[in-house]
């Protein structure tokens, strides 16, 4: 029997959609029979199942999507490490193939559920893709293992939204090895990028980046100033928690001296309170 015919047979017990287009799924014990039957066919059958995902997502392929996601959750159970590796290898392999971008996005989202370090390189290759970089980044951030290396490696070649995504990701990961690249991003033309890069440096708690974060905080009144001020306060907290009191005090003193308008009185008050807590 051909793989597609076999898969059609395996997926047949998944119930039809309800009249309103919703899905009243099977009980887990019935679903597991479907999942095990897919896994019995090894990597090729999982890859064939992944190949059934179509674009656009309009419900035609709901059985394949439902089974792939159910498998991702099923393989998260203890004792499923071996089939989990097979599943991840099969999906990661499809990311570099010729399938539709929408399908690749769906597979990346399943790797966000179940993937591990072994998927990082395949996802990393998508960080420059205009349509897929967000899905790849979100999967890498969920996986964590090996993610920082991928973002670090990709960052110099990235522009626009992909660059913004990678800069933010390095901040989320608190990647201390990226501070130089992040300081550069904090001085670039794109206002969103500057604010996100300042936040990333603050979240990392990099003492050598105080000037860069304070510069971002001195933006014209408006959204960028609100968010960059928040980054300044975060950096102050991180530095104080790390015992770097002089650097933290510098941040708070700057806020105290520059937030003179009544509308920023609450920031000035917070800075004064933090300075007092630092002992001066």
């Amino acid at each position: 029997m051909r793989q597609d015919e076999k898969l059609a047979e395996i997926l047949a017990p998944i119930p039809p959609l309800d009249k309103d287009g919703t899905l009243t799924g099977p009980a887990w014990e019935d679903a597991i029979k479907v999942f095990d039957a897919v896994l019995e066919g090894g990597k090729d059958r999982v890859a064939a199942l992944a190949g059934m995902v179509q674009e656009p997502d309009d419900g035609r392929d709901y059985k394949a999507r439902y089974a792939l996601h159910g498998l991702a959750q099923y393989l998260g159970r203890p004792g499923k490490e071996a089939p989990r590796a097979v599943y991840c290898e099969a999906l990661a392999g499809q990311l570099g193939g010729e399938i539709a971008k929408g399908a690749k996005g769906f597979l990346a989202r399943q790797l966000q559920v179940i993937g591990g370090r072994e998927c990082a390189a395949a996802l990393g290759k998508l960080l420059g893709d205009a349509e897929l970089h967000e899905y790849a980044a979100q999967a890498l951030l969920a996986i964590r293992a090996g993610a920082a290396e991928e973002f670090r490696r990709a960052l110099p070649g990235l522009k626009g939204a992909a660059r913004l995504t990678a800069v933010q990701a390095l901040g989320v990961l608190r990647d201390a090895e990226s501070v130089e690249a992040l300081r550069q991003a904090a001085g670039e033309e794109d206002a969103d990028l500057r604010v996100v890069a300042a936040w990333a440096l603050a979240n990392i708690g990099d003492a050598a980046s105080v000037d860069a974060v304070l510069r971002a905080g001195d933006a014209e009144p408006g959204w960028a100033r609100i968010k960059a001020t928040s980054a300044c306060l975060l950096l102050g907290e991180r530095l104080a928690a790390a015992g770097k009191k002089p650097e933290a005090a510098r941040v708070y003193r700057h806020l105290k001296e520059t937030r003179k308008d009544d509308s920023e009185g609450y920031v000035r008050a917070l800075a004064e309170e933090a300075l007092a807590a630092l002992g001066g």
Partner: protein
Amino acid sequence: MARKISRRAFVKGAAASAGLFTIVPPHVLGGPRHVPPSETLGGALIGCGGRGPNTYKEMCKDHKVELLAECDVKFGDKADNKRFYTDFRRVLERKDIDLIAIGTPPHWHALISIAAAEAGKDVLCEKPMTRFIAEGRAVVEAFRRYKRIFQIGTFGRFGSSKDKKSLETHKIMRSGLLAPNPGVFIKKGGLKVKEWSGRVNAAPQTPPAALDWNMYIGPSPMKPYVRPRHGGTHRGYWDYEGGGLADMAQHTLDPYQWTYGKDDTSPVEIEAMAAPAHPECVGMWGWVEMKYADGFTLVLESGEWGPMYDRKASKGVSLADLDEGQRKKLDAMPDPEPLLTFAEAVKLRRPAGGNPEAAHRCATLLHLANIAIRTGRKIRYDPVKEEILGDELANRLVNPPMRAPWHL
């Protein structure tokens, strides 16, 4: 001698952190019976559809608020950036706005709440407070850092806190005299499971011209415009809410969370009876059992799918659970402080009854329930670290990544 300050300046916080609260007489602060006629606060509504207008009304109760801005991603045909906006960031930039009512879908609640605090505003936010657990902790921290007021848009706990029987239960639960705790609370039905299931076969379309789809999606994964993903039926998609459970459980459970004294903790074991979840659309589930560390059990039973919950029977907590010595100890304990309404909290600069920590703990219940439903696994949770224990994959649902430039 106390320095005279306007109520508006006080709300803005310059006085609060200068320690003036203890020495300024109430009439200077514009207390409940002393609101100077000239002291009107500036208000804005972000997310104007569905519950939005009622959320705004709740925010305005018992104090004077002038509506200065209305913001919605579907206002592309009337946005003038003076009264009507599509981008909440422009609203938060305004210096004349003090209070923000948030009526957007829940995937925006935490980020807008946090940004409002950063901009020095107080917030009344529609329930559920958040889309996932880590958002709630970030809201708690932001409102603590900025000393702003937050109230969740559900109010049943105010009634419970004045009800004699609920008050008695609350005191017993908080006393620590019951160990192990025999209480079992079962919430049956009313969770709109089928009603807010997502449509699996909706085809992508071109978004309406007046709708800013990119801004609507915000921190959630970008997906093509599909009509049911927007406008109330968004509840059926994991990207924005989490079904009837997320829509209704904070409303339903919040009064009981107060009554059972669980405003500062979360369950430690969670188990669900549900169908395997669809990747995008929220689907059917039967029941969820959540056990706290002290033994108290909370059960949600949908009555809409699968077998009924039959592990435990409902069991209230009462004075009958205590011996005479314990009752004497309980009598000697003080009653809890009355809960402050949003208006009182804004005036007094003290936490509201539906404060961030309480609201976050309640939202955590529905998120933990949904994680158990989505993973199909029994999960163990650390209520202090706010992490799922021994299950790194389930833990990914505690703090899923956001789409840049949005982050916690």
